[in-house]
């Protein structure tokens, strides 16, 4: 059978679009399947101040729009749609989007990561009813109301700072006694008068499912076990991300935490399949590292397609984790 594309890229965050840019400039006519969370996590952020080249910062959605236009300018095709299944056990690889099947000689996976929930059950049931993972989307509904933010990293601090301009009071709930957020973000949060911190607390329940809205959080002191309640109208969860790798279970080697394993640059456990960005990076998770690894994946794919990607000396040797 004839192959639709030399390279298909799944995902349209910084990794996917940088891979598309490089693949397009290498004349590979890449197809990008953008996914339901098109543009990736940066679409949900406000000002990005650490992407090189933008001295005054750039809005996340604007940065993604620029990357997209740049990739398209060089000939990348970007289509809407969410990949429903993938088969990398056959060649060419099969990629299904709803009822349409695409085939590709090489595949770049840049499906990223999505916000983690608390795993209480009740948090998902009250999603859109006061529980949110996106302050810039849903902060609007909490003008003049008290809210809580769960987490101690950069995401949580960014949410708290954003919400402090809308909500009367923002309470940050963190299970440790110090933040893991960057110094800049910590300082910003500590210097905002209506942000307060509850240390060594975890959320064990969210009320009130019967009323179908958030009225309070039940907290547990991680040191004493003592329970308490905090009355809020909204709770924003910023406790990290999980990689979007469900499509590849049983097909590609993954770490225990679900992130794709890569070696020798962007190679996965299947020849011709490359991974870039947060889907394979649980350490750095920055826009610029995602973009960098997208570039690597495109160069690796190009070499694979031209037959000049040499076999590595250590193809995933550990059978217990591969």
């Amino acid at each position, binding site marked *: 059978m004839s192959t639709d594309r030399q390279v298909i890229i799944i995902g349209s965050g910084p990794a996917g679009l940088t891979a598309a840019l490089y693949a397009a400039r290498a004349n590979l006519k890449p197809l990008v399947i953008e996914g*339901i969370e098109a543009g990736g996590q940066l679409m949900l952020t406000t000002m990005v101040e650490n992407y090189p080249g933008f001295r005054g910062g750039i809005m996340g959605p604007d940065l993604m729009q620029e990357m997209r236009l740049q990739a398209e300018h060089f000939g990348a095709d970007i289509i809407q749609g969410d990949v*429903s299944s993938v088969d990398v056990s056959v060649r060419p690889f099969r990629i299904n989007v*709803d009822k349409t099947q695409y085939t590709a000689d090489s595949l770049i996976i840049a499906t990223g990561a999505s916000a983690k929930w608390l795993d209480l059950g009740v948090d998902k049931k009250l999603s*859109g*009813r006061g529980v*949110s993972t996106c302050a810039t989307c849903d902060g*609007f509904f*909490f003008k003049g109301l008290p809210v809580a933010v769960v987490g101690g990293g950069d995401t949580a601090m960014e949410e708290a700072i954003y919400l402090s301009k809308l909500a009367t009071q923002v309470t940050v709930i963190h299970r440790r006694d110090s933040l893991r957020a960057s110094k800049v973000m910590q300082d910003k949060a500590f210097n905002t008068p209506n942000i307060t911190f509850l240390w060594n607390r975890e959320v064990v329940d969210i009320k009130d499912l019967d009323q179908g809205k*958030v009225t309070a959080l039940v907290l547990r002191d991680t040191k004493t076990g003592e329970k308490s309640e905090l009355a809020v109208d909204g709770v924003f969860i910023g406790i990290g991300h999980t990689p979007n790798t469900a499509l590849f279970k049983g097909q590609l080697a993954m770490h225990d935490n679900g992130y794709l394993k890569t070696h020798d640059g962007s190679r996965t456990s299947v020849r011709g399949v490359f991974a870039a960005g947060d889907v394979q990076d649980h350490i750095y998770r920055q826009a610029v590292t995602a973009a960098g690894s997208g570039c690597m994946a495109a160069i690796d794919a190009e070499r694979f397609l031209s037959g000049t990607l040499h076999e590595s000396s250590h193809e995933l040797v550990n059978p217990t984790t591969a």
Partner: protein
Amino acid sequence: MASEKVKTFTDATFTDDVKSGVVLVDFWATWCAPCRRIAPIVDQLAEEFNGRLTVAKVDIDENPMTPSRFMVRGIPTLLLFKDGDLKETVVGLETKDRLTQIITKHL
């Protein structure tokens, strides 16, 4: 480009607007990035269910009463009404296939 089959509902007329038939309402705002992602899917649904389903949008900045009445506290949220009764609530992003299944149940 937005489908011409997608209507715009407002606070003033909402109750009448959903009174009969099966109606899908997309609550959105200009500043909501995920709303921009679901918009083309909503347009496609309007085209594909042409006539069997009414599809409409409510801008929550201009129409604060309706989201508050249905306890919408996150967008995008899609509400599905049948003859005036709320049947389904879909919060956040969903694939077109999944939305098609949800709608078809009520037709």
